């Protein structure tokens, strides 16, 4: 692990180079490189950079007849409309609150799992458990929505077996908002738990065994060792994982919020997030002005957050930062 970090940082210091080759020289030497990079370069221009530039339609009154260039400018009208609707507040609140809940759960539950799993003595069992744990992570969002439906649908297991067993009434989950602030975090944690657990486990694995040996000799209990050795030593990893997620709080998991509540309109108050709002307003209702304003707002605030969090991550460990 150590040697890898070193290899990454030991690049040729610029001082050693005799002189920088001129542009022509470097073109002659590396023309193959430019050719190799061409397909992805062109792809990124089309798939990523053109849409970035296209975001300026947020300041236009776009219509198909006049197209991208011909449509008239209309200043910040789209934004005025958007922030007059009560949706603007709801989708911002939902996106941010759900994401912060997910971050908290993605912290507490996987670390607990990693700590416990490290205490398993039978390594074969540990691996079998991991295999099962990882299953939800690989399921498509559609399968996830099937799984949830199988439990809480009208004929679902909860409604036909579990609730009657306790003598309780059927619950119309897809029509009642109050359940979803629990269901969505539960589903999300079930799905993302293995990813974070593996990351924290590999961080715990790199802790020197000698610390624990010394602690045992001093008579420290398991609980004490977790608190005083394991947790403090994985703090950098924890901070990085949290920051990377905080950077993305303006972006919601479209599959989760669109599919799992089965597009039930009664639930929009607690399930509509910026991404589903943009999709529906644009492709279902065809209102480009409103949706592109929401999209622009998400992109700009999102950029500031991603950029900021990466700046901090870079201060902690350069390897984990994007730039």
């Amino acid at each position, binding site marked *: 692990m150590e040697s890898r970090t070193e290899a990454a940082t030991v690049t040729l210091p610029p001082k050693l180079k005799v002189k920088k080759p001129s542009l022509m020289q470097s073109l002659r030497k590396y023309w193959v490189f430019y050719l190799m990079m061409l397909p992805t370069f062109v792809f990124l221009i089309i798939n990523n950079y053109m849409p970035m530039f296209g975001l300026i339609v947020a300041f236009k009154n776009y219509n198909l007849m006049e197209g991208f260039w011909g449509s008239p400018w209309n200043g910040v009208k789209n934004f005025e409309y958007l922030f007059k609707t009560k949706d603007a507040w709801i989708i911002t609140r939902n996106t941010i609150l759900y994401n912060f809940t997910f971050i908290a759960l993605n912290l507490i539950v996987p670390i607990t799992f990693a700590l416990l799993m490290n205490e398993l003595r039978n390594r074969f069992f540990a691996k079998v458990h991991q295999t099962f744990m990882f299953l939800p992570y690989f399921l498509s969002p559609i399968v996830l929505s*099937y799984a949830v439906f199988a439990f809480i649908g009208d004929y679902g297991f909860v409604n036909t077996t579990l609730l009657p067993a306790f003598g309780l009434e059927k619950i119309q989950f897809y029509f009642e908002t109050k359940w979803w602030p629990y269901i969505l975090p539960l589903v999300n944690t079930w799905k993302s738990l293995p990813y974070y657990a593996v990351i924290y486990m590999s961080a715990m694995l790199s802790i020197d*065994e000698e610390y624990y040996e010394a602690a045992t000799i001093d008579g420290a209990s398991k609980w004490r060792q977790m608190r005083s050795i394991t947790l403090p030593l994985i703090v950098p990893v924890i901070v990085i994982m949290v920051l990377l997620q905080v950077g993305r709080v303006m972006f919601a998991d479209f599959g989760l919020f669109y599919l799992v509540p089965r597009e039930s309109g009664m639930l929009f108050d607690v399930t509509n997030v910026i991404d589903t709002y943009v999709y529906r307003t644009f492709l279902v209702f065809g209102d480009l002005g409103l949706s592109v304003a929401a999209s622009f707002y998400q992109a700009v605030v999102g950029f500031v957050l991603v950029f900021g969090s990466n700046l901090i991550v870079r201060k902690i460990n350069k390897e984990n930062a994007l730039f």
Partner: protein
Amino acid sequence: MSVEAIDTKAPGNRANVVSGFPQLLLNLFFTIYSIACILPIILIIAISFSTETDILRNGYKFIPQNFSLDAYKFLFIDWMAIVRAYGVQLFVIVVGVTLSVLMMAFYAYPISRVDFRHRSHFSFFVIFTMLFSGGLIPWYIVYVNVLHLKNHIWVLIMPALASGFWILVMRTFFQNTVPSAVLESARIDGAGEFKTFLRIVLPLSTPVLASVALFQTLTYWNDFFLPLVFITDQKKYTIQYLMYKALSNIQFIAQNPTIASEITRSGGVLKLPSETVRMAMGVMGIGPIIFAYPFFQRYFIKGLTIGAVKG
């Protein structure tokens, strides 16, 4: 089953091991959680093999009261639709994964070379796509109004061809794993840059190529967003999208022309067993991945940790 995962800590000293009853409890806890991870899948499979009347009377059960293949028989009235959806999905995966791994490796190698003059500019060109995104609408306009790809099978492949994340992962791998001495000796032997890349760098990089290929396979297999946004032509539905249709509106299956004519011909005897057919459709979509993934788990986990924390 090959089970390869992150190793738990080897018990270093005997005194510091949780044993006896607590160890038993630990195992019990993880066993219960493991079961919780497969239960939903088992439930979906069980429903698909039940009879519609049992479901309507007693609801979804983990064990079918009367084993029945009715749902599958109904679904396979128009088996062509399912075979076609699998075909589309397979085509998209094979073409998409091959192209994307090659494209990303071709881009990642030059920016991994410290002697390449413009490496930092080209790296930043990738990194910026991860910092800022134009969002759905302009992206949609590019694909539909500029490239005119709506309802074209290419639109299921192209948008996922290159991802900044995997390019950076490959770059780091090339940088750290391929010794510069090897590249140097290849150059002295007179091998050109491209030849060196194909003959030396790629073979040395199979672990990272395998991980990226697997994750791309998963991306293409799990994707429902691209057909949702771009595809209205039923001939180009993927299996995931068929599943989505079946869950959001089960009547969609009865509207299928082949099945509809079969229902009319039966004169009311044949009815859509909606609850079980829906889950049979779900089983169709879960199928392959669930059997494949334990075998590839090692590469998946390697791919996950490679991109995240490097210790």
